[in-house]
């Protein structure tokens, strides 16, 4: 056996609940003991469309939070945006439906060994894994500030319980319908400059992750970002999900965002090369 995805399993998970929250669906899955192996940042890959589906590939979703309840045992929470045919199908599935899933997959957010000041930045449903992360960071004594952004208020996912786990939460929407009008990156420079941030954890659209990377570029702030590339397999066997990442020696590797990610060191991702091919060879 190899070390890749060493806790991952394929199994049937039952939907415990499926609720609309703004423009998203909060879906809770009963997964049993494997919940213990699911870390903030990991994702789940779900087969969609049922037995006669013309959709042959799984869909990837970040694990938002994990819990252990008396009635259902281990459960995972997902926040799903009804985007195309697969995610829409998922959002339509009712309580009691069994889903074919593979989880936990991919890298997790690195948790500091000492208490630090952490800034969590989420765009759209990208906030999902940050609440689970916030709980872990708090339990390690970190200060946790959070910035959430989206085009409009309906696309902000910020549950009550989640809010309790953070020291501060600021919301930005482009249309100003909720929180402040603007983008999550607007207040960040000031926060970095006054030294109140040690680590940034981010999850959201690639453009947002890139903007954050550019901002922290000349600072000492560590930036762990959860990337989102189109994935055919989710387990490292197809090579569709690659991102250009700078190696120690200055060369570039095309790394698989499903197994070398989704959580990556933002300072090593070569954002300007995404969608292109590095010229030299590895």
């Amino acid at each position, binding site marked *: 056996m*190899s070390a890749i995805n060493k806790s991952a399993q*394929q199994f049937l998970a039952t939907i415990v609940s499926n609720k609309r929250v703004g423009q998203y669906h909060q879906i809770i899955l009963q997964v049993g003991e494997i919940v213990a192996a699911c870390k903030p940042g990991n994702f789940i890959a779900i087969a969609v469309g049922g037995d006669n589906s013309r*959709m*042959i*590939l799984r869909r990837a979703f970040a694990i938002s939070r994990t819990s252990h309840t008396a009635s259902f045992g281990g459960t995972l929470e997902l926040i799903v945006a009804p985007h195309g045919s697969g995610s829409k199908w998922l959002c339509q599935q009712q309580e009691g439906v069994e889903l074919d899933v593979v989880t936990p997959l991919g890298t997790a957010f690195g948790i500091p060994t000492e208490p630090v000041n952490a800034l969590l930045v989420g765009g759209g449903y990208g906030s999902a894994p940050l609440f689970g992360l916030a709980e872990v960071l708090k339990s390690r004594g970190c200060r946790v500030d959070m910035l959430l952004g989206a085009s409009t208020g309906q696309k902000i996912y910020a549950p009550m319980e989640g809010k309790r786990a953070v020291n501060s939460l600021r919301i930005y929407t482009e249309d100003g319908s909720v929180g402040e009008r603007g983008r999550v990156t607007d207040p960040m420079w000031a926060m970095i400059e006054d030294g109140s941030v040690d680590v940034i954890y981010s999850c959201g659209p690639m453009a947002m992750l890139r903007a954050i990377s550019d901002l922290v570029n000349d600072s000492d702030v560590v930036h762990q970002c959860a990337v989102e590339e189109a994935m055919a397999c989710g387990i*490292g066997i197809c090579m*569709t999900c690659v991102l250009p990442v700078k190696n120690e020696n200055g060369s570039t590797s*095309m790394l698989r965002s499903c197994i070398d990610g989704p959580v990556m060191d933002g300072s090593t991702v070569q954002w300007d090369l995404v*969608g292109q091919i*590095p010229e030299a060879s590895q």
Partner: protein
Amino acid sequence: MKEFDFGTNLGGAWFPAPIFTASGCASSGKELAQFFALKDIGAVVTKSVMTKPRYGRPTPRMAETPSGMLNSIGLQGPGIDSFLANDVPWLLEQKARVIVSIAGETVEEYSTLARKVRGISGISALEVNISCPNVENRGLVFACDPEASRRVIDGVRKTIGGEIPIIAKLTPDVTNLPSIASGVVDAGADGLALINTVLGMVINLETLRPHLGGKTGGLSGPAIRPVAVRAIYQVHEALPNTPILGMGGVSSGRDALELILAGASGVSVGTASFGSPTAIPTIQNELRDLLIAKGFNSLKQAVGYAHREVS
């Protein structure tokens, strides 16, 4: 009752079971080892490797299509030296049977690759993926050109000698597949792998441009299964004594049986592993049960059965 014989033979190499990974759909095996023991399936066919490390094509590299997908990976990989030094020993340690797939841009590159593979012991067979652009001839895919196909296989044959079987992997995107097939068999291929992906394209309706970074891509998955069955049937009819490693859209035991009845002695499973990491052992078990249920005593009896007259 005699025990059911699930073993198969491809140009001299023997495998205890007929279901293999498909080149490029299992990387070098490590990633699938979490989901099943690699030694339990017929063989691991590794991703086509070239002489030098390669970045491959720009992203996006995939698009899902009805019952299929397009990919344009562009043979990203570590290069043959790193591959032989790291990946092959690991696979052999797992007691997996290993079929190494090679790809080149020139006739010469294929021979070079074959020479390096020949130096490593424990490899069961060599798959020669000739569905690659020939840089010496306006990028025309080798397997689209009877003469270039023959030259590649001839060069590999001379290099390999008789040490391990050579399986030539062909593209279905040709006017006359049996003629390409018989050309490479004449040139020294011990077996044929059919089919590589079918050339396709998806237009992205947001950008209004080709979706893939590489513009065109290879279509795989259940959508192309009827094309694979036809290709295998045609080639088995023309060359009944040449073993065929079949592939294309197999995602269940019944699909694998279709390819076997058409003439395949072994079946590679590619895209189905993306949809389900345990697809290969599941398919292998389903196939075994199905063959027994149909009354076959061995896999071999079923190979090409669809060609026999109804009695």
